[in-house]
């Protein structure tokens, strides 16, 4: 699978798949791709629906973090899910065959195009893995106010 993601053909396919399978809006259609993919912008968000082919909580494929390969109606998409510990702390499991919905947007990193997830949803459970500015959610942000308060005094 790693080879699939890294191969040039796969990248082209991925870009095509991203262009076809995500919901788009008028603003997206008017922006050059290079400009569009530079950084996260919530106004460009779209969503993917598909089936998990593979999940890796700490992938060796950049960008560093959790990745899943999603089978959509038009092809496979590499989805970056941020810090895998956020999913773990949320007791959110992903296994091959799971149906998921992902809110986010496509970004580029070097020669790689991937779908940067902000929210991943399986059934009725949804986890936010990025904030609205695109920065990754950390496990610490999942703590309740009481749990955060308990950190006072920790040395």
């Amino acid at each position: 699978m790693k080879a699939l993601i890294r191969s040039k053909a796969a990248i082209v396919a991925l870009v095509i798949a991203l262009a076809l399978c995500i919901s788009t809006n008028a603003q997206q259609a008017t922006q050059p791709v290079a400009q569009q993919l530079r950084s996260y912008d919530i106004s460009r968000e779209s969503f993917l629906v598909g089936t998990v082919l593979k999940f890796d909580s700490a992938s060796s494929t950049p960008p560093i973090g959790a990745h899943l390969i999603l089978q959509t109606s038009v092809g496979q998409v590499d989805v970056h899910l941020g810090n895998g510990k956020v999913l773990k702390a949320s007791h959110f499991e992903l296994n091959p065959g799971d149906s998921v919905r992902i809110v986010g947007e496509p970004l580029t990193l070097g020669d790689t195009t991937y779908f940067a997830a902000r929210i991943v949803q399986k059934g009725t459970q949804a986890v936010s893995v990025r904030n609205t500015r695109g920065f990754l959610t950390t496990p610490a942000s999942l703590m309740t106010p009481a749990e955060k308060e308990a950190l006072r005094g920790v040395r």
Partner: protein
Amino acid sequence: MKRLLTALVAAAALGISGCGGGGTNITPPPPSGNFGLASLNGTYAFTTSGEVCAGCTFAATPMARVGSFIADGMGHITGGIEDVNTGGAPSSPSSITGGSYTVNADGRGTLTLTFQNGNSINFGIVLTSTADGLMIDETRTGTQASTGSGNFILQQSTPFVLSELTGNYVFDFAGFDGAQPNPNPESFIGDFTADGTAGTIPAGLFDDNDGGQLINGGMNPGTISQDPSQPAAFTNFGRGTATVAGQNFVFYIVNSGRIRFLSTNNGMLSGDAVLQSTPPAGFIGDFAFLVGGSDSNSNGLTRVGRFTASGNTLGKMLVDVNDAANEVQLNNLSNGTISSYDSNTGRGQLSFQDSTGQVYTFVFYLSSPNSGVIQDVSPSNTAGFARVVADGSILGQSGSPFTSSNISGSYALNWSGIVTSNGNQDEEDLVSQVTATNLSLSGTSDIFQFTTTNLTPQFDIGTNGQISFNGGDGTGDDGKRVSMTVNLSNTSPINMVVYIVSPQLAFFQSANNNVPRIVAGILKGQR
């Protein structure tokens, strides 16, 4: 010594996670040098930034420490005080009532600080002189583990006097904001005027990159004063409280030239303010820089590079980027411009672009003609927002050509960042002492990887390596890119790209590794 022996056994038995396994067994060399217990003698201000796992119910939480300890020159810690901000939750200052330390001949050692309640925190240290050193947090108790990188600096003779804090200070405070539940990374740099006699900060200028959103301008008047609830802490340790641009901080005076800050509201920011000498009339010279932070790709971004500033233009630009473990060498940089520079404040802005047209922009504040702080404000496709949040240091390059003759002797080495191993992605901190002989490195390291299941630091790891003047441009000896390989015992080589600031200092970041690793650090000569 007991720890050394125990660790030697452990190091021989265990490879380092996330280093790909393999490698050869490296026996730590016998410590050699002129350091000893007497080398750590006086009151030192320390700071670290990293993570803590308290109870380990959750994954690690960001943690920043700042404090002061007294070393008696004989292996004992006789007092001190510490402030902590854990995940945006500051704690009341806690008195350090005792502790101990060791210092080997090579400057490596341990530091244990014990609090009134009997709890202790532990650090691995490397002295770079009798006045300063590098450290990593190596605390591991039954209920808590914490890591992080930082340093300690000898403070002036007591008692501290507020009126000595007078003049313009350049600052760099980094961390995250107070947004809930998901904080944004934040870089807050600038300069302010301190009037210690009046206890005020009457004016200042700042650049804030808060989750990519850029705000800059003059800051509202603030304060800098003793903490009324801790008057003795000011007299003995230089600890006070301040309000800078509306945000509350605790501070520790190192001396009139440096103040260490930690925020106590609105998130977690920490860093130093350095007394500014008269800014130069123009921004001119050879400079190396290192920034670290985040972007949308992950919580790991580092950039290291160099350029030659000539008034309004930049030349000889080279940059290496490690963005979420995607490593890129930028060689064909163009349109190097210093778009603004104010010799009254030392603030300026520079930019250049890569071969794809991507523009890189930085704001900087000079604290002297050859040093300052720098913030990445590279534009995104959203007006008013940068595409990354990162900041760090900019230093004038000197002492070239760099050769095996002057890149020689004993060095302290520290890196910090993120590594992926054991199915986890988390922080890694390393502190070493190495000796460079004909550009070959030999020494000993401590490393703490928060990816391990038992969150246990590893001590006294045999270390060797090689510095090679074989960068992409082939001219590394004049201050451009060089490479460094670090071998930790029984692990695969860890590759770094290095920009030498001077024969006594270099910036580096990870590059060309099979294992995803986003770390950056410094190599600093020992005196």
